[in-house]
């Protein structure tokens, strides 16, 4: 005996799926709304252009914002070329044997390593062993290592999605393998690669643990003057303000303000990626 008619079941499942989908959207809206409301008292352009004051409880987020932007620049310089080129090696030059299988396992496991472990690695390798000290460059490199597997996997997938027939066409015209990669494979894979790069940068921008161990400062009265100096960064700033101020459960508006600046930074990077991706899609249309 049937408890429910087929149509009723259909409705039930449809609504269940819709509710799950709605929940995801709702989560994002709640997060943003909560932070916007919390940060209303401090939210203004001055918040971006003023350094923190009175032990982080007042003033803006200029110093941490600049620190995070510097970090992103260092991560980009190291992780993007190394990540993309090693993805090219893995998918275009390396055969299909056990070695390639091994590489893939290594990369996907790297992506799963907890960020605090990267922090420890950075502390041991860059801060101590390489003698870079607690500095922008040590933190940037640590975050770069963390971003690498994300860049590699995304680039690899994007490169794999280019049909072999296009490579054949180029090779058959007398192009070398590198010419084929340079003129066809990489440009056509660029939208996917960019997605991976932005994903990796967003992830790196939000990490607290690795920079905590390798160079982020609780408070600095000035901007970092070289890549070897310490710095403030947004995620650590949020942590620092949230744990150190006496504003109680509701936190200080500075926390929400810093968090929303970080969020806008990340969303902004994603928007840029969308625009660039769209341009590439128009340029190379299948």
């Amino acid at each position, binding site marked *: 005996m049937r408890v429910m008619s087929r149509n009723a079941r259909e409705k039930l499942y449809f609504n269940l799926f819709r509710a799950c989908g709605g929940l995801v959207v709702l989560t994002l809206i709640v997060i943003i709304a909560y932070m916007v409301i919390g940060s209303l008292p401090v939210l203004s352009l001055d918040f971006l252009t003023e350094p923190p004051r009175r032990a982080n409880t007042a003033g803006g987020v200029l110093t941490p914002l600049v620190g995070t932007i510097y970090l992103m620049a260092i991560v980009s310089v190291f992780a993007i070329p190394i990540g993309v080129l090693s993805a090219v090696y893995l998918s275009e030059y390396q*055969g*299909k044997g056990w070695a390639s299988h091994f590489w893939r396992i290594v990369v996907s496991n790297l992506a799963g390593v907890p960020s605090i472990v990267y922090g420890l690695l950075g502390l041991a390798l860059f801060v101590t062993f390489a003698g870079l000290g607690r500095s922008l460059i040590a933190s940037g490199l640590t975050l770069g290592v963390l971003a690498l597997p994300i860049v590699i996997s995304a680039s690899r997938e994007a490169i794999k999605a280019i*049909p072999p*027939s*296009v*490579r*054949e*066409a*180029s*090779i*058959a*015209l*007398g*192009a*070398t393998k590198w*010419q084929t990669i340079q*003129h*066809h494979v990489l440009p*056509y894979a660029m939208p996917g690669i960019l997605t991976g790069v932005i994903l990796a940068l967003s992830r790196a921008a939000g990490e607290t643990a690795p920079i905590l161990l390798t160079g982020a400062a609780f408070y600095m009265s000035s901007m970092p003057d070289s890549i070897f100096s310490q710095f403030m960064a947004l995620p650590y700033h949020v942590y620092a303000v949230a744990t150190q101020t006496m504003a109680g459960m509701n936190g200080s508006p500075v926390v929400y303000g810093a968090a929303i600046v970080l969020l806008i930074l990340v969303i902004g990077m994603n928007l840029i990626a969308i625009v660039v991706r769209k341009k590439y899609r128009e340029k*190379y*249309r*299948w």
Partner: protein
Amino acid sequence: MSSIEVKHLNVWFDDKQALRDVNMTIPNKGITAIIGPSGCGKSTFIRSINRMNDIIPSCRVEGQILVEGKDLYGPDVDVTEVRKRIGMVFQRPNPFPKSIYENIAYAPRIHGTKDKRKLSAIVEHSLRRAALWDEVKDRLDKSAYDLSGGQQQRLCIARALAIDPEIILFDEPCSALDPIATAKIEDLLSDLKDEYTVVIVTHNMQQAARVADQTAYFYLGELIEFGDTTQLFERPENELTERYITGRMG
């Protein structure tokens, strides 16, 4: 003289032998068709001629293929030079996802032609040669993927012609096309054969009979029979050939 002399050609993929001791001389100019059932090695054979099999790591080639007396598999041969002299058109149209102009200009550019006026002349000449110019001359900057399947395949032919090869290989060029587009490609093949040595692999025996001057029949990796098309279809010497062309096998 761009005849192709094949001597004791053996090809393996890992341990599996795909071609067994193939010996034949494909004459200069004209159309030579390669026919045979699926898996007989005809694609492997044609891809050996421009060394496209090189890009498959498991592939091993023994024997010689001589063009103008020079072995394409010789020790100091530049593969890209081989592929520049021997063009190829594939089973499915595979234009680059770029403009029509860029599709044609790509190969001359990587082979050293930088002058814009020269490139434009090459583009126009190649497209005319491939009977596509009138259909696309007003939209050279449009994506190649805006073209129909048959037009795309003619674009690929024009692309192959743009580096001025001596030999052009066609690997089942019509298998993804409708009859009208197929007829256009066949007309085009007949136009090209006075100027180029054309080798075409085809599944379609009628196509071989219609366009080819010589036809070769491959079976299980061996060349069974090679001769004048009319003779091969009307008075095959080998029993295997006869069974295939009369439809009793394959």
